[in-house]
């Protein structure tokens, strides 16, 4: 009886067993490939994004430097001796008391409360908190698009 069982098991199910094992192996490899691809695409997109952020930070710092330089240049062009000389060049002269008429304007405060137009533009920027609104579907689409992009780039 035991021999019959043995024959029944191995002779009839040999092919099916191999088929299942192969299918399982292929499935496993496929899952591993998908997971691996997803992992690689994630890692690659992380690295690319980080590189982009680094570039943006450098670019921002560079722009800040250029901005500082421009502020300096503008300030140099706006120094009083330069403005004074330029005004004289184009025909102006310093006003005297006799040149000035004072008029009363209702609501005007003669004691100027000068409001500084100074702000540290670069440091005043409002910080916005990124809002996470990604759905699983959009994430999957994004990943597929990334993978297909990468495959396309490999082909090129």
């Amino acid at each position, binding site marked *: 009886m035991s021999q019959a069982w043995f024959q029944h098991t191995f002779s009839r199910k040999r092919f099916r067993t191999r088929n299942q094992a192969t299918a399982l192996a292929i499935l496993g490899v496929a899952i591993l490939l998908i997971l691996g691809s997803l992992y690689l695409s994630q*890692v690659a997109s992380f690295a690319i994004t980080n590189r982009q952020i680094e570039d943006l930070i450098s670019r921002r710092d560079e722009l800040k430097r250029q901005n500082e330089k421009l502020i*300096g240049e503008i300030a140099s062009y706006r120094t009083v*001796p330069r403005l004074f000389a330029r005004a004289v060049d184009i025909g102006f002269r310093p006003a005297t008391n006799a040149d000035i008429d004072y008029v009363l304007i209702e609501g005007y405060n003669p004691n100027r409360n*000068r409001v*500084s137009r*100074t702000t540290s533009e670069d440091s005043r920027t409002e910080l916005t908190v990124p809002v996470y609104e990604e759905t699983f579907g959009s994430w999957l689409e994004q990943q597929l698009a990334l993978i297909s992009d990468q495959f396309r780039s490999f082909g090129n």
Partner: protein
Amino acid sequence: MQGPSSQQATIQARLPFVAIFLILLAAYLIINLANFQFFPRSVRQELEKIGNSITNTTLRIPAERGRIYDRDGEPLAYNLVQYRLGISPAFVADADSLSAKLSEILNLSYFEIWRKATSENVWEFLAGPISAEQGQAIAALDDISLGLEEIPKRFYPQGELAAHVVGIVVDDGLRGALGVEGAFNDTLSGRVLDLAISKVPFDLPEDRPAEQRGQDIVLTLDRDVQFWVESELKNAVEQYNAFRGTVIVMDPRNGDVLALANYPSIDPNNFLEIADPNLRVNPAINETYEPGSLMQVLTVAGALEKGVITPFWTYNDTGYLEVGGRDIFNATYRSYGTTDLATILSNSLDVGAATIALQMGTSDFYSMMRAFGLGQATGVGLFAEERGELRLPGDSDWNESFLGLNSYGQSLKVTAMQMITAYAAIANDGIMRQPRIVRQIISEDGPEEARSSTIRRVVSAETAAILKDILIRVVGEGAPAAELSGYSIAGKPGTAKISTAVAFEEGRNAKILSFIGFLPADDPQAVVMVKLDRPDGDFGYQVAAPVFRRIVDRLVILLEIPGDSVRSRLAAAEADINRSSS
């Protein structure tokens, strides 16, 4: 020979031992794994440190120093970036090509660069400081052998304008050492950070934190007024061949310093090239002097306030008085007979001032001098302010003659800032405002107004009004050169000898001539102090008063102060509008 069943029996007999061995081995591994997971803190920290040293690199980020602006937002000090360039010869791929490129960018010798690029050393300094443009061009080469290091550079776009007020920075731009840069160094400097940068490409890049940046400062200075005052001061110093000069303009209503000028000045952009160390201090607050006859106004104010004298008080001036064993004479060695307060101040009569001080007595006199702020730093907000010298009864080096000498400005020392603050109190109806140079501090949270504060009421409004009337007469009778057409001006010229440790200096120019005045006298909006050290000329009314007039001639336009008649007309018109609207 054993049969299969015997072998099976042997295996079955040994199997428990093998199983036990495997279980023990597994237990040992699990325990070790647990041990590994729960290392002592010190070991974990050490391991983390080793790990971080592999994956992280530390970058020193210099703090960005806060900017300084005038009251209208014109930049007076801000930052530029420069670089220092070095090279790692071991990483140089093509020394010839790199040297050629660097030589072109840096304008340096090709052979010098090539020598360093092929050196055996691990690191060679190439150039620095180099400009931001050169730095960018080098960064664009994207060569791993080159190392660029940021160096902050402070730049003062207005050059010498208000140099002693704005100040300078030393130690590679890290520390303020004069003026606002020095006094507000902690506010301006920000924090130098050592930022750990991860080399792992999956970690988010670190950004420099915003709070690292220093705070910006807005001054009370008015750039236009400052420029005008500096121009006139320079002319005056040259005209009168003075050793040095100082002018301060203050708004007595809030203590704002609108201008503070010294000549000769310094160029803060080339601070290291200043050879004379005397130029590296601000004489208006860092140096003291005997104020001379300017003090007589404070003596009279104190006596009026204490009720020791009335506005109609007179005395018989014999030209001589002995106080505490010391002989006191008028500067002209003349006697003036029956003399009133205005005459004392117009003619700067030392005997008159000493007579009043004697009537006050030491207690009243010194309490009033303390109330006027003598012997105390004003707290204006500038670096290393001197507090002057006012010896008081009870001090080991005080004697009775000091009461007489101090009453007309000798044997005590003040700063120019102290004197103008005391006069500003009289101009402001007796209320002394805290002098201030900083108007706003701008931090990450927004601008914070530095509140104008009151120090104390020094004299009553009535006393201040009496003094203003007297000082208007003093200008009319004693210093007509200070008068400005259309404006009522109150003021007092001062002539002071220059004291050394043992005696007064002798010589034609051994004096300090000054004038302090305010306008419009009935509603003072500006107090101006002119002080010239060692000028040609004998008296303050001859030398300092005309300079004062030239300054206020333009000041009334820059500060939009209408003349007396115009202000009366405007006041009447405003009253009409108020009547009609009510």
